[in-house]
């Protein structure tokens, strides 16, 4: 059994055919984590005992012909923003470094109900604030293709773990590109579903009107399989869509003939690396050869999407992070019996508990929401959000899919942008417009470019209309078949 060739789809078939057991699979990935993760830093926590016991239970069910689902026994991991009952969940932040949730997020409940094995929790930018995973308060995850570079973020631990074969898939979150950009930088598939497709209950909130939960996997089929597990209406999240969930993985056979693909001019900016652009152009050519109809289009409000996003997002961040008050949970300076003043407990717990980027975003969000500035910034951004959303609606009147790059550059060096928030924010320029619009989008590997003699991955972004994940997954799956290279895995130094 070669890890390089294993996918969720293949492993679940091997499990169903009795050719492998969940305990073998789980031990394989646990051993790889032990061997390679000290170099990559993709995991904040590995739950060896629990994973092995879940695998044993799964094997029993398979033996009795009573698997809970097709994916029963498949080992995956979770971005550490997702609450797992009785398992430390830190959001990558010092303020939650000892937080043990007394409940499961709905996605975790669904994963358990489907019998999957949870190996552990993946590193992230603290509270998902970032595009490089350097903002984690605990450690910096490295890009497995070149360990001097970032894996992207904020779901960088998840993408790095999946691409280096430390798990078969991972559940991430995406507020402005946090699933798609690391997927692109690590050569894995990252799906941001429609807003409301997957419950946010128990997922530590970043910006509630933008946050979505989605899978990071090696193939599009695997993304479809995981989406089937986690998607659906949830009584505990009033923003979830009440649509029936199709079996996405069985709706991926339609050809690309006649598929209308729009390519917006505004996404090909001077800031993009020439060889990255070449990979995107190659992808467009492949679609054309397969019979898709390509049209160049204009999305004029793209120019304001980054600003719109970077006002709305910190505003919601500042509001969501106000719950960390040092009294109910998380880091606190308060000691009972002391004479500390309430205000001091708030100020000091937050001042000492939050990291750099969280503080920066809280301040920015507080500023744009404050009296005197609300209309100029927040209200304006909410109005521009309407314009950004309308751009997408206009294009989708005559197109099935919008195709764009994911990131203007391949993975950048660790430390290269960490002192300059603007530089870091600009690395999200092609992914942030999607979240204010709410539409689903996927990042699919499109090739490699050379930097310092090393192969670095480049992904292509495909965007679909609201609620149309099925069509999106089909088109992405068809692209995988014609893109002209096979799944690869980076070579990682053993420790």
């Amino acid at each position, binding site marked *: 059994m070669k890890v390089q060739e294993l996918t969720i789809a293949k492993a679940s078939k091997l499990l169903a055919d009795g050719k492998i057991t969940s305990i073998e699979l789980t031990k394989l990935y646990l051993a790889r984590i032990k061997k390679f993760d000290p170099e990559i830093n993709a995991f904040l926590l590995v739950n060896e005992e629990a994973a092995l016991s879940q695998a044993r239970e799964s094997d029993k069910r398979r033996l009795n012909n009573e698997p809970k689902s097709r994916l029963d026994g498949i080992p995956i991991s979770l971005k550490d923003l997702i609450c797992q*009952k009785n398992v430390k969940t830190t959001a990558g932040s010092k303020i939650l470094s*000892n937080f043990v*949730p*007394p*409940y*499961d997020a709905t996605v975790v*409940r669904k994963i358990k109900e489907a019998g999957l094995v949870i190996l552990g929790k993946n590193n992230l930018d603290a509270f998902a604030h970032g595009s490089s995973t350097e903002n984690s308060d605990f450690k910096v995850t490295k890009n497995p293709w070149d360990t001097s570079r970032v894996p992207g973020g904020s779901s960088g631990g998840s993408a790095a773990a999946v691409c280096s074969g430390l798990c078969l898939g991972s559940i991430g979150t995406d507020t402005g590109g946090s699933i798609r950009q690391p997927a692109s930088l690590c050569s894995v598939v990252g799906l941001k579903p429609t*807003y*409301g497709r997957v419950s946010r209950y128990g997922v530590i909130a970043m910006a509630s*009107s933008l946050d979505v939960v989605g899978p990071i996997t090696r193939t599009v089929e695997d993304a479809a399989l995981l989406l089937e597990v986690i998607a659906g209406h949830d*009584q*505990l999240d009033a*923003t979830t869509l009440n649509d029936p969930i199709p079996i996405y993985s069985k709706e991926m056979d339609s050809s690309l003939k006649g598929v209308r693909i729009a390519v917006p001019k505004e996404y090909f900016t001077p800031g993009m690396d020439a060889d990255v652009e070449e990979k995107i152009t190659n992808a467009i050519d492949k679609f054309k050869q397969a019979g898709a109809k390509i049209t160049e289009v204009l999305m004029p409000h793209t120019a*304001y999407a980054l*600003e*719109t996003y970077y006002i709305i997002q910190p505003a919601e961040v*500042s509001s969501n992070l*106000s719950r960390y008050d040092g*009294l*109910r*949970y*998380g880091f*606190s300076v*308060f000691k*009972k019996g*002391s004479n*500390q*003043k*309430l*205000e*001091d*407990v708030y*100020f*000091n717990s*937050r*001042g*000492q508990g939050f990291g750099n980027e969280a*503080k*920066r975003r*809280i*301040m*920015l969000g*507080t*500023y744009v929401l*404050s009296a005197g500035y609300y209309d*100029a*910034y927040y209200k*304006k*951004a*909410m*109005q*521009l*959000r*309407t314009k950004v959303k309308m751009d997408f609606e206009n294009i989708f009147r005559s197109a099935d899919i919008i195709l764009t790059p994911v990131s203007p550059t391949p993975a950048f060096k660790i430390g290269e942008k960490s002192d300059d*928030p*603007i530089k870091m*924010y600009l690395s999200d320029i092609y992914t942030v417009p999607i979240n204010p*619009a*709410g539409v689903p989008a996927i990042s699919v590997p499109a090739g490699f470019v050379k930097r310092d003699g090393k192969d670095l991955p480049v992904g292509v972004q495909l965007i679909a209309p*609201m609620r149309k994940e099925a069509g999106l997954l089909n088109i992405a799956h068809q692209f995988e078949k014609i893109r002209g290279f096979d799944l690869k895995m980076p070579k990682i130094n053993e420790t």
Partner: protein
Amino acid sequence: MINKDEVSTVVKLARLDLTASEVKKYAVHLEKVLKLFEKIKKIKTDDVCETSQVTGLENVCEEDKFYWDENQRPKSQKELLAGVPESEDGLIIVPKVIEG
């Protein structure tokens, strides 16, 4: 554009205790980010509706029923309060809120 006093006001509103050097650093960052926002101020949006949500869902109501998955229900008060910084006899201890 943004001065130290304004930063101090924001810090106060945000309930953050920052050192003087932090205030200085974030003032520079805020200034840079706000500069980025300058160009959107000029766009006319007088008759544009605001978008605060994208799904169009309205009046989402659930039955007036207590919902708990039995497998999820914490088994004890102790379990529920395990993450509280300071507690006593099943109560959360907080500093004095109203000064006498």
